[in-house]
């Protein structure tokens, strides 16, 4: 059924159709509309049976989810940014315990400085947590991925985070083809836990594992996640059969066939990239796009296949690994081990800065001309940055306090901007 609704509502409705039994969430911008939507559905009785728990922190949210999931209930939560960080101990705990919790992360920058707008730094910080990470390009895909996520999580007994760009997707009204309850029921069977807290069959969950077994346990967690590389494409095919559209999968390419330059990105920016690429293709540029949907597990083989014939790859990232540079590009590079091509990383959109077609056009043309540094920052105010760096140098003079006193303060003051 076609609707014109807010992305958050599309997600809330899709999650509700997955028949979650326990929802426990703490509000944080820009996820609030999702959990508000779900709490209303529970309160009106539209979503039943379902327990909606208003928790006192994100750490509590994930902890309640752990208890609920371990006790055999299909469990859902949502967060962003600071909230995700606050629950990190429990995030690792959930994946270590193999609990099929599904969580929406409405991608938002991490402070300090506090910033409520979109970028990928939050979920990127959890890429090693053992959770499966799926990135939605549109609100349609965001809704669809949640349905696939529950199925994937419960089959593998692993938690899944569905990442959608905060505000850009969550707060945008667009056309969504909302599934019917029958379609979701046909796709997603009831939750059958692999093991559960049950007085009739008691188990102890969460024992202390020493050096003699820990490595094997961790390897098994990795191996289990790698199984998702096979299962995710299959789930997308099964989804298409029931819902009638392509959604999810590990990656997708756009106009990549004879591309000499390939642009790689995650999330909603792919839309703007595709419009820019269309323009350039119309002018004869041989340029294509690789969108990565499953970031964890990272689809190395598929990424390699998509990029191997290009001359150069530009990875556009919405997060910055301070001290080194790109995150996605590092994973892309691993996939391209042994392949000779030029690689560029462009950091854009941090803290919600708009990524415009104009800037992308310029960036892509520079990439085509190989006129880019290995690491580029899009739309950076270089003048301001240089001024700040110079000022910092002036203030932080090396030497002893005695030497500082010897300096002519007038001279220093004259150099300050």
């Amino acid at each position, binding site marked *: 059924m076609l609707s014109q609704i807010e992305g958050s509502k599309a997600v809330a409705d899709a999650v509700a159709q997955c028949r979650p*039994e*326990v929802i*426990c969430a703490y509000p944080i911008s820009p996820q609030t509309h999702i959990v508000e939507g779900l709490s209303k559905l529970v309160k009106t009785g539209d979503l039943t*049976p*379902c*327990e909606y*728990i*208003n*928790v*006192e*922190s994100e*750490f*509590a949210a994930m*902890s*309640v*989810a*752990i*208890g*609920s*999931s*371990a*006790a*055999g*209930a299909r*469990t859902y939560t949502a967060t962003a940014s600071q909230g995700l960080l606050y629950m990190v*101990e*429990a995030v690792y*705990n959930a994946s270590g*315990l193999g609990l099929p919790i599904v969580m929406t992360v409405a991608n938002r920058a991490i402070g300090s400085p506090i910033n409520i707008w979109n970028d990928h730094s939050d979920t990127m910080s959890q890429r090693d947590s053992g959770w499966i990470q799926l990135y939605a390009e549109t609100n349609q895909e965001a809704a669809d991925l949640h349905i696939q996520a529950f199925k994937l999580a419960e089959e593998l007994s692993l938690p899944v985070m569905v990442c959608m760009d905060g505000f850009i997707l969550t707060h945008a009204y667009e056309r969504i083809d909302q599934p019917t309850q029958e379609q979701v029921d046909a796709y997603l069977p009831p939750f059958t836990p692999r093991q559960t*807290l*049950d*007085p009739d*069959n*008691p*188990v*102890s*969950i*969460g*024992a*202390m*594992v*020493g050096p003699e*077994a820990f490595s094997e346990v961790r390897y098994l967690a990795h191996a289990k996640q790698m199984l998702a590389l096979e299962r995710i494409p299959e789930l997308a095919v099964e989804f298409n059969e029931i819902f009638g559209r392509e959604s999810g999968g590990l990656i997708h390419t756009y106009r990549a066939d004879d591309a000499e330059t390939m642009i790689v990105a995650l999330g909603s920016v792919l839309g703007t990239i595709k419009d820019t690429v269309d323009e350039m293709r119309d002018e004869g540029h041989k340029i294509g796009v690789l969108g990565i949907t499953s970031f964890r597990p990272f689809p190395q083989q598929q990424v390699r296949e998509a990029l191997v014939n290009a001359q150069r790859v530009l990875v556009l990232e919405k997060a910055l690994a301070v001290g080194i540079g790109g995150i996605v590009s590092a994973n892309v590079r691993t996939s391209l081990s042994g392949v000779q091509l030029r690689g560029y990383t462009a950091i854009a959109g941090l803290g919600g800065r708009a990524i415009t077609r104009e800037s992308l056009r310029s960036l892509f043309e520079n990439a085509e001309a190989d006129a880019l540094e290995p690491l580029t920052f899009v739309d950076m105010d270089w003048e301001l940055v240089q001024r700040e760096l110079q000022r910092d140098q002036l203030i932080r003079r090396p030497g002893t306090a005695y030497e500082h006193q010897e300096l002519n303060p007038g001279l220093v003051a004259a150099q300050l901007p």
Partner: protein
Amino acid sequence: MPYQPIKFYQTGSFVVGNRLLDVEARSTQSDPKRANTLTSGHRACQGCGEALGARYALDTVSRVTGGKMIASNATGCLEVFSTPFPETSWQIPWIHSLFGNAPAVATGIAAAMRVKGRDDVRVVGQGGDGGTVDIGFGCLSGMFERNDDVLYICYDNEAYMNTGVQRSGATPGGARTATTQPVGPHPGNEFGQGKNLPRIAMAHEIPYVGTATVADLRDLEYKVEKAMTFRGARYLHILVTCPLGWGSASRDSIRIARLAVETGIFPVFEAERGEVTGVTKIRRRVPVEEYLKLQRRYAHLFGKKPQPEILHNIQAAADRNITRYGLLDDTPDDLKPPGEAKDAATSGHDEAQPEDSETDAMALTSESFEGAR
């Protein structure tokens, strides 16, 4: 038959008369078919009060629920010594998640039971003082505020024992820990205002709050049973001796816990919705030194550099408890049963009278029976 003097306080109210009681009145522990929720084979220290308290409490929960229970456990001694992979001592469904989230995990389990229509399955959350009073405090308060149907039990041994005896929010003033060493001008833990979890629980106005110790099995079992008659958030705070952390003889664990009560240092009471509904009176009051002297964590208060001021503070805190909760019996002496009359002039140092007649024992038994109920 040789005459065997029995010191009543060492053996608890009903041990002597257990076989003379109706089956329903006997302790859970006396039943050979008890659940043994925490069964043998765990790695606790000799004389561990927490192992004792956990078994006492959870066996009682198991009895009243017919075994339909699930427990969530914070990181700490209890969790570590009970589940060294691949072994477990737990005969109930049990989960350990993190240090600070046992109450929240319990909330989640309770929600799952509720949504599945399993009202018959009851949920217990448990942890040490560190996991309850400090790092788990936020989650505990949230659980209280929502009135989630969880019984939370804190086994309080007054420090972070599993990591090597560091100070927690529950460490009493003057006590030695690895981070409050007995050196300098203020040896041992600083005196603050403390963090009285039972009273904080009462401030949340939850259905039931109770305190107990491992010295009085019957009282502990009673409190657990009482707590399980309520739905909603309930809190039990159990003082458990830690021979290693307190520097006490493992054979003294129960004795020390009793002395904590009899000095007034640890008040035993229960409350409903924020109002105290019952206290366990001190039968024979003793000065705090009798309790402190058995523990090397207080050794620096005595000996070569005594700390009379700290002793005074500890005694003052005990006095305050006695007044606040009315822990001393003010029945006039001539109305007390024989053998119980107190000399008003004594400072409470006298030894308990040995039982020389069964009548006295029975009389004292029923008297204490009243007191514990």
